[in-house]
C-alpha cells in the first residue's frame, strides 16, 4: 500500500513539472534571433517522426482526407465533414502506404469533430493529445496532413505557424492548408495534438482547426457513434428518407419476399439483388412487408439495412447503403 501511494505522489509531481516546462519561445512576442528560430525548429523536429507515424490518410468513397491515431488500438480523430456520417467504411493509409480498414464513429455536425476506429488489430503508432487545454494564443504549432490525397513519394506535408486566433469552437493558425488536409492534426511543439484541420479562410495563411477541448466535451458520445449537434459539417439522416430501390410482394409460400421490380442502378441492384430473388431476412429477422417498411421508416439516406436473400443457388447477406430518393 505504501509503495502505491508513493508512486501516485511521484506522478503528481511529474505532471506539475510538465506544466512548468512551457517552451520559452511560445512566450516571445516574436522570435528575437535566429537561435530562437532554431529552438522552434528543433522542438518540432524532435516530435516529427512520431507525429508522422500517427498521421493517416482517410479514403472514404471518392473522397480523401486526413486523421490522427490517438490510441494504440486505433482510435482516430478527424473532421466530421471527412467521415460525413456514422458507420462509414474507411480505408486508413499510413505514410508508408500500409492500409487498414476502419469505420467512422460519432461526429459533431456543429463543430466538425469526428472519430473513427481502425477495425484491424493493432497496436498502432499513436500520439498524445492536449487534455489540459494548455495552449495559448501565439503558441508555435505544426500541422500535418495528406494534402491533395495520398502521395507516397511526397509523404506527409509539414507546415509551421502560430496560433493566431482563439474562439470557443475554433482555433486559427497561420499554417497553410489545402484540400485533403481536412481532419489532419495540429500539434503543439511538445508533439501533442491540439486541433484537427477543418477549413480555410480567403487568405492563404488563415486556417481553422477544431480544438481538442471540443472533442473532449463530447468524447464518450463520439466514441459510441452518436451524431452530436446540428450544423454545416454533416447532414443528419432523416428517418424514412432512405431509398432502397426495390419492389417486393409476399411470397406465396410465405418463406420471404419476392423481388418484383428494381430501380436501375439503385442500392438494391448495386448490391447484386435480382428480380425474382427471395428476400429471406431484414435486419436479422424473417422478412415481411411490415418489417421491411418499418425498418426503412427508421433509416435515412446514407444509412445501411442488413438484407439476406437467395437467388436459388446461393444465399447472400449484405448491408445495403440507402440513398436519396431519386
Amino acid at each position, binding site marked *: 500500500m505504501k509503495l502505491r501511494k508513493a508512486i501516485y505522489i511521484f506522478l503528481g509531481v511529474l505532471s506539475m513539472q510538465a506544466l512548468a516546462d512551457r517552451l520559452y519561445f511560445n512566450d516571445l*512576442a*516574436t*522570435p*528575437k534571433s*535566429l537561435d*530562437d*528560430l532554431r529552438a522552434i*525548429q528543433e522542438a*518540432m*523536429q524532435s516530435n*516529427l517522426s512520431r507525429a508522422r507515424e500517427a498521421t493517416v490518410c482517410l*479514403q472514404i468513397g471518392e*473522397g*480523401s*482526407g486526413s486523421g490522427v491515431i490517438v490510441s494504440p488500438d486505433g482510435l482516430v480523430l478527424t*473532421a466530421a*465533414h471527412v467521415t460525413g456520417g456514422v458507420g462509414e467504411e474507411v480505408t486508413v493509409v499510413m505514410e508508408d502506404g500500409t492500409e487498414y480498414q476502419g469505420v467512422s464513429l460519432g461526429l459533431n455536425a456543429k463543430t*466538425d469533430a469526428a472519430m473513427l476506429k481502425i477495425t484491424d488489430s493493432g497496436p498502432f503508432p499513436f500520439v498524445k493529445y492536449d487534455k489540459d487545454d494548455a495552449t495559448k*494564443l*501565439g503558441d508555435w504549432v*505544426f500541422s500535418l496532413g495528406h*494534402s*491533395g*490525397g495520398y502521395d507516397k*513519394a*511526397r*509523404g506527409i*506535408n*509539414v*507546415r*509551421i505557424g*502560430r*496560433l*493566431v*486566433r*482563439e*474562439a*470557443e469552437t*475554433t482555433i*486559427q493558425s*497561420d*499554417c*497553410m*492548408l*489545402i*484540400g*485533403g*488536409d*481536412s481532419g489532419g492534426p495540429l500539434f503543439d511543439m511538445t508533439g501533442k495534438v491540439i486541433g484537427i*484541420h*477543418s*477549413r*480555410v*479562410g*480567403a487568405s*492563404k*495563411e488563415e486556417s*481553422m482547426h477544431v480544438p481538442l477541448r471540443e472533442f473532449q466535451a463530447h468524447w464518450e458520445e463520439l466514441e459510441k457513434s452518436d451524431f452530436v449537434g446540428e450544423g*454545416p*459539417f454533416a447532414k443528419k439522416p432523416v428517418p424514412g428518407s432512405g431509398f432502397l430501390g426495390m419492389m417486393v410482394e409476399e411470397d406465396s409460400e410465405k418463406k420471404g419476399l419476392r423481388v418484383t421490380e428494381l430501380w436501375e442502378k439503385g442500392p438494391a441492384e448495386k448490391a447484386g439483388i435480382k428480380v425474382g430473388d427471395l428476400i429471406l431476412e431484414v435486419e436479422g429477422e424473417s422478412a415481411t412487408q411490415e418489417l421491411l417498411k418499418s425498418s426503412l421508416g427508421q433509416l435515412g439516406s446514407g444509412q445501411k439495412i442488413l438484407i439476406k436473400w437467395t437467388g436459388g443457388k446461393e444465399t447472400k447477406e449484405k448491408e445495403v447503403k440507402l440513398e436519396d430518393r431519386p
Partner: protein
Amino acid sequence: MKSIITSIILSSSVLGNTLPSEQRKTNKSMQATLSPVQKYLQESSAVFYDSKRRVPFVYGTIVGSDGLILTKASELDEVEEFYIRIGAERYKEPTILNKNETWDLALVKVEAEGLIPVKLDGNSEVELGTWTVSNGASDRKTRRPRPGIISANKREIKGGSPAVLGVGFKMEDDKITITKITEDSGAEKSGLEKGDIIIGFDGKEVGDDKEFIELLKAKAAGEIVKLKIQRDEEVLELDVELMARHKLFGGPQSRNDSMSGDFSERRSSFPMVLQHETMLSARSVGGPLFTLDGRFLGMNIAAANRVEAFAIPVENLKSSLSEMKIASGL
C-alpha cells in the same frame, strides 16, 4: 479522388482573441529576426522587371560574378522586354543565352562584374522541418526575406513532357497509335488525324511510346518537329509545332487550384525538387532558397499550390548550369 476540405469561409465568423498581425509568421517583426539571412538574398538575387509595366515579374539567382543569372524560363515568355535589378543597381538589355526545357531554366547575362554568386558546390541534404528563407517581396533597393520550412520528401514531380503536340496516343499492336487530337493544338493545325501511326520523329525511327515520350521531353514549346506517320497505306511527313503543356491544357483544374491563388503555370515535370512551405506566388519564384545559416539549397522554380513550393536542388542546378554554359559557348 477528390480532396476534402470545407468551403472557404469568411474569417469574420471566427470571433475571439486574436494575435496582433505583426507577430504572425510572415509579418514584419519576423523579417527583422531574419535580417542576418537577408544579406544573402540581397547579394545573390536578381529581380526581373517587365519593361513596359515597370513591375517585377520573377526573380533570378546569380550564378556568375560576371553577370550570369538563372531564372524560370516560362515566366520570361510572359513579357516582351525586361530589365534586371541586382541590389539597387539596374541592368538594361539583358541577353537570354540559353534555355533548358527539362528544368524550365533560362540562363541570362547582364554586363556586370564583381557580383556575388550563390555557392554551387554545396548539397541539398536537409532535414524535414528545417527553416528556409526565400524572396518574399522587393522594393528597388531591398530584397525582403520570407520564412518557410522544408515540408516534404525530395522527389521527382511527374507530369509528362512540358512541351506537347496535342495528341493522345497508346500502343496498339506494338505501334504508337494516335487516339485523340486536342483542339487548337499544333497537332490539329498540322493535319494529324486520329488513327495515324507514328513511325518517325525528326528523321529518327521510333518504335514505342516510351522512346517517343523521351524524345518529346527534350523539346521546347515553339519548336517544330517532323513527324513521320503511317495513315492506312500512305506514309506522310508532317511539321507539328509544340505548345507549352500549361498553355494548351492550362487554367485552374481542381478545387485545390482554385483556392491556391496565383500559382506558377509550369509547376510539374521536374526531375527532382525540394519542397518547402513558403507563401510564394508565380512572381516570387526564380530566386535562391537558403537555410538560416545562409547555406544555398537550391533555386525556387514553382509555386505549385497553396501549400507547396518547389526548388531545384543545388546539385541539379549546378549540372544544368554546366550544360547550359557549354550550349552557349561559355
